[in-house]
């Protein structure tokens, strides 16, 4: 069952078409990564899904059209995490920031408190609850923004370059947490990024270029198109690059995303 449906979407800024007859479906409970070079229209698509652009009758979430009438109901169940948390914070402490959305939905204070404890421990931000969000580092801000989205217990999580300020080690931890939400709680995840290392946690990779889907597939098979990815300016995961280069010397015969296994294969 498709939880997000985009059918023949056309969108333009002035005379420049970003999407022309663009279609994409996302199945419930999956994690889809949508990647593409800078300026390809990733953030535009996020804004369309969030109802921040005009009403688009050709975009549906939970089978409902994303329009003025439905958007309030849709947003209650979709967590959005945007690239720059500074544009989003409204409160004086991280704790208030986490509570904000549930308070607006008139959730009982005790429930909110319990939820804040749960989410802040999960993301490792429980030591930041009394801090002003604007005093945090970029990575910490993004963790808080993710926490705010998770507070809602969303059915869909939409991430727009949401982890790019987080360092590589912590990014892996956060991606594992999101993966758990995806597999255990059946939260559908749609992540927009140009970092294909992040994509390795998802089930499906969709690559956009000039308003069209040029690659759509599962891992690691999708990396057979590595050259195309590079050509449009995407950086493939290091393991893919290494596999491909070792393949030239017949030291490995397929792409392996696990470096330890790759070295074993080379040295067998």
């Amino acid at each position, binding site marked *: 069952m498709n939880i997000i449906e985009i059918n023949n979407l056309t969108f333009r800024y002035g005379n420049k078409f970003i999407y022309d007859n663009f279609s994409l479906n996302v199945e419930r409970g999956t994690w889809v990564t949508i990647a593409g070079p800078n300026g390809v229209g990733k953030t535009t698509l996020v804004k369309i899904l969030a109802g921040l652009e005009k009403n688009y009758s050709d975009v549906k979430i939970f089978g409902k059209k994303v329009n003025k009438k439905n958007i309030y109901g849709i947003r209650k169940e979709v967590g959005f995490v945007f690239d720059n948390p500074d544009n989003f914070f409204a409160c004086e402490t991280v704790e208030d920031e986490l509570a904000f959305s549930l308070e607006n939905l008139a959730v009982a204070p005790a429930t909110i408190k319990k939820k804040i404890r749960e989410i802040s421990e999960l993301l490792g931000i429980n030591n930041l609850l009394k801090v002003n969000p604007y005093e945090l580092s970029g990575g910490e801000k993004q963790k808080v923004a993710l926490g705010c989205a998770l507070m809602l217990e969303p059915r869909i999580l939409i991430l727009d370059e949401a982890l790019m300020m*987080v*360092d590589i*080690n912590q990014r892996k931890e956060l991606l594992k947490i999101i993966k758990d939400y995806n597999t255990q709680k059946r939260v559908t995840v749609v992540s927009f990024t140009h970092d294909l290392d992040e994509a390795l946690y998802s089930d499906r990779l969709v690559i956009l270029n000039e308003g069209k889907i040029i690659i759509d597939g599962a891992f690691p098979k999708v990396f057979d198109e590595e050259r195309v990815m590079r050509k449009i300016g995407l*950086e493939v995961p*290091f393991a893919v690059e290494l596999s491909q*280069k070792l393949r030239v010397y017949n030291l490995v015969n397929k792409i392996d995303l696990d470096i330890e296994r790759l070295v074993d294969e080379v040295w067998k």
Partner: protein
Amino acid sequence: MEVIFRNVSFSYNLGMSNEKKALDNINVFLEGNLIHGIIGPIGSGKTTMLELMNGITKPTSGEVIVGNYELSSLKNNFDFNSFRYDVGLVYQFPEKQFFCSTVGEEIAFSSKIFKSKNRNIKDKVRKALKMVGLDDSYVKRSPFSLNAGEKRRVAIASVLISNPKLLILDEPTIGLDNNSKKRLMRLLKNLKTRYMKTIIIVTHDVDMLYEIVDDIVALNGGKIVKQGNKMEVFSDVNLLEKNKVPVASVIKVCKIFKDKTGLDLGYVKNTNELVRLIVRKCKEKEGDY
């Protein structure tokens, strides 16, 4: 332009219940005309170091010296005007601060603030654009019509217009795709070699850093984990990993290769060299060498 941190400590909210020590008695020497990288996990003190060396904040104790500028006390007579000329800071997502209608106006803005003589501004704008590899045709274009990589370069040009001796960049490659990132790396190398700039990069993009920097300062919990030449710093993978400092991918592979085979690949500059060395070791094992 050299940067010196001597016994520097810094605490946020000093004396309050939520006091947080960001830097703890660090000593750092960053030599002039080199590219330096500052790395570390979230909350390690990277941004605090950047703010201290740019005079945005004062150390709780110790001395911060940038070239001839003593930044520890920042007395009323401190010459911020000439300091801002000599030290350029490029923030994260600098392009988000654009507000002029043309690239030329955007780049000229800081010069106008510093009351530079107007007759020179056009030349300075062109020179700054040239330094970042953009031609004169960009002068009349809207900065908002550019792609992400071009915007980032315009933002750097708007700092370079004052011809700073020291350029400090906070996460310069963040949000850029691979092509834009490579162009930016070439630009930074060029600024060092051709224009003799000292460059300090604060980032968690260690693969990028590994390719372009000379020296590295690795931080964790406000303390120095290791500093020095990048080969020296990255040679101690165990120490860095123990301190949650991100390690460059090629270095990680070298460590895995050594753990599994007992063979040391030595200092590896990039992926191509890594592959060449692995192929060579494999051939030696097969007796082809």
